[in-house]
């Protein structure tokens, strides 16, 4: 976690975008974008990003359409994709991304907890556990509002009722945007909660897609490096995006990925 400087930002940066998807075939756009971003990052950097300790941070981002005036009018959002309920991990993801964006305050943060499918029973418990981290950041003034993605209506309502800093965003998959369950809709309306859409796959960066990337790249690198990357896995992924308030202009979007090299 001391690797804040080990980012790789190539000079020729990429604007990675998602495509709304209507078919199964296209379901992996977000993943593809991250992979494309990683590839560009890995192959176009003058120096291969040096891992620090056991971790490697990779960032793909662009800054567009930002005048100083615009900076005052940005609406910012971070979505954090996480598979472990380890609080350090969540905290690392958010602290890292927030400081990287160099903004005093992020408008919203959405938690996407990518639990294993057989875990559904304890999901509320785990979310409540992780929620504390988000609440702390709100109390510290780093985040204005917090939300959660892809949870069942009852989990969402129970979470809402149990926590101190209430979720104000419920993010659902785009494919469900025309069929939001009425009870969820009603609850959200009553409590001023935004139901927003996303287009992200459940597993945002599958290891089987990630690994080959490093094998190819490592042909260029020393043998002991290759060894280091043989056990790579994803600690977290964050996506940040910003638009200019009340003008509908997209201003910034990108991903940060932290990989564990253990």
């Amino acid at each position, binding site marked *: 976690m001391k690797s804040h400087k080990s980012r790789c930002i190539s000079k020729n940066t990429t*604007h990675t*975008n998602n495509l709304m998807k209507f078919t199964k075939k296209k379901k992996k*756009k977000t993943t593809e974008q991250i992979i494309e971003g990683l590839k560009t990052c890995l192959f176009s950097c003058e120096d291969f990003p040096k891992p620090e300790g056991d971790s490697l941070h990779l960032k793909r981002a662009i800054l567009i359409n930002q005048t100083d005036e615009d900076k005052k009018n940005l609406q910012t959002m971070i979505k954090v994709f996480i598979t472990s309920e380890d609080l350090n991990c969540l905290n690392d993801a958010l602290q890292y991304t927030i400081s990287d964006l160099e903004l005093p305050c992020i408008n919203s943060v959405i938690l996407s907890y990518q639990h294993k499918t057989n875990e559904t029973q304890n999901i509320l418990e785990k979310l409540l556990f992780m929620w504390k981290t988000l609440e702390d950041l709100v109390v510290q003034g780093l985040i204005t509002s917090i939300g959660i993605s892809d949870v069942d209506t009852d989990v969402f309502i129970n979470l809402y009722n149990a926590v101190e800093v209430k979720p104000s965003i419920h993010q659902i998959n*785009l494919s469900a*945007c025309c069929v939001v369950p009425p009870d969820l809709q009603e609850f959200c309306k009553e409590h001023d909660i935004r139901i*927003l859409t996303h287009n992200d796959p459940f597993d945002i960066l599958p290891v089987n897609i990630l690994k080959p990337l490093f094998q190819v790249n490592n042909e260029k690198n020393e043998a002991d490096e290759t060894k280091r990357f043989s056990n790579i896995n994803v600690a977290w992924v964050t996506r940040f995006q910003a638009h200019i308030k009340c003008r509908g202009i997209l*201003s910034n979007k990108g991903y940060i990925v932290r990989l564990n090299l253990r």
Partner: protein
Amino acid sequence: MGLLTEGSPLSWEQTKEHADHVREHGIIQFINLFHRLKDKTGDILKFGDEVEYVILKVDHKNKIARLSLRGGEILKKLNAKEQENPENVNSLWRPEYAAYMIEGTPGKPYGGLTAHFNIVEANMKCRREEVERFLEKDEILMCLTAFPRLGCPDFTWPICKPNPKDGASHSLFFPQNAIFQDHPRFVTLTRNIRKRRGEKVAINLPIFKDKNTLSPFTEDFSILGDDGESAKAALPDHVYLDAMGFGMGCCCLQLTFQSCCIEEARRLYDQLTPLCPIMLAITAASPIFRGYLTDIDCRWSVISGSVDCRTKEERGIEPLKKNKFVIPKSRYDSVDSYLSNDSSKFNDIPLIYEEEIYQKLKQNNIDHLLSQHIAHLFIRDTVSLFSEKVNQNDEIDTDHFENIQSTNWQTMRFKPPPPNSNIGWRVEFRPCELQFSDFENAAVVCFIVMLTRVILSYQLDLVIPISKVDENLKNAQKRNAINTEKFWFRKYINLSSTMCSNLLKDPAFKNINFTPDDSEPVYIQMTINEIINGKEGEFPGLIPLLNSYLFSMEIDADTHCTIQQYLNLIKGKASGEIMTTASWMRNFVRNHSSYKFDSLVNDEINYDLLMKAYNIQTGQDSCPELLGQTLGKFSKTTDNIPSSLKKAYCPKQSC
């Protein structure tokens, strides 16, 4: 249809005498307003649509649909509500050219949140309901670009006869009383345009040659009281029209949006210019004129011809003696020049203007591109002047500028902030034809406004030579252009932007090269399907670009649901899966049991066509061949933006 000034109109002879006076002071007024407002910045996105409606009177027993001339009467009732409470109405109502028309706009412009795309359709619906309260028995309100039997005998209710000898237009077909009478502007314009031109306007539309159509197709106008002028002007195998009402009596869909500053407005004016022909072809909705199927699908050339006030000299038919210029286009036509520096290299058609006026603007520190644009607009004479408005304070008033500006009816309009308002620099998008339903019209409006956001976000460059835009506009009006024509369009859309090249690394646009070799032209010919939906390895497509943008924005579920329906509609039209309104109408006529394949649309066909269209508009008929698969009554469009979104995205209530 432009500035409405209260007062008494001058005669044509008096108006003509003041032509130079209006020009001179109009230019001074523009110079003053420009320097007063050029630095206005920081305006948020606001936009509004203008929908023109027609009122029909339907005789169900005899299967006849006519145009009801009660527009003025209904307008009075609608305006009463606005006068009582101008700040708090859902819609605003204004007169339009014909007595059977009214124009409705939202009470306040929509704002810059993505959620505003979800209230456009609901507002249109609400507008319609407001008018419907004042309709009489057997009257219905419709969105109809061109009434199919416009100008046929007895097409109005009450029935009026044309006045070929003494009316403002001298038309054999279009009665004086079908022109809106409660404001003198419309009759005055009609008379002055005819007088300036020196003869009746003459529009000839190629007839749709069906298997039993007369060949050559000709008509005898003497029985209608023609003194020979019409017989001379009408071309064989064409449907001949002779009045301003045939064009200005058409309805269309326009939208205006506010930019953050003058530069952004100039840029969007340029960027949307190449989209005008494309949107015209997609929204094509007027294949029938004066009861005949024609070989065109759009109103544009009709309305252009209907206000063509150029003299024979100006049209190049006679040598220049009294007039200053030969002018290639009507005052209602496509734009002639781009306004921003980046686009200026594509200004490739000669721009006519008076050197003296251009120099005056330049000397007053207005840049070359804007000076030539304004000077070019000011080659036109005023065609409507009111005695009370002749003498003005050029420091404050802008009426003379507006007089000329608002009678240059072009595909795009660049609009300075109005005096005494907090409104910013605006751009108006004017080519689109009206669709039957609020759903379709809202889809068109939202599509264009969203595209402006994509253009600004990704810094796209869609500009091609103006001459190619003109060529496109001609082709866009042809029968079934959407599926058969190819259009010049920019293939490399990121030349001036580093940002855009990054966009292309998006896997969605894999293998698309966005930067050309030096030798290659930046634009090519594409089908509408390729322009809208993309072509693998060649062009990303406007909808995939839009999707890419949308997915990077914070959008609430209901709005996203609505937007998806809109994009599916545009996508389907472009790919040919869904018919254009024009194709659907043509198809309806040709499949009607009383159609004799002679191009003639009789009263019964007209009635059945309009009743079917009405049922589509009300949602009673789902009509997937025209609308695609829609949510119908399950649509998520809503009157108000949810408070959670307002709180999160515009806490200061500014939008």
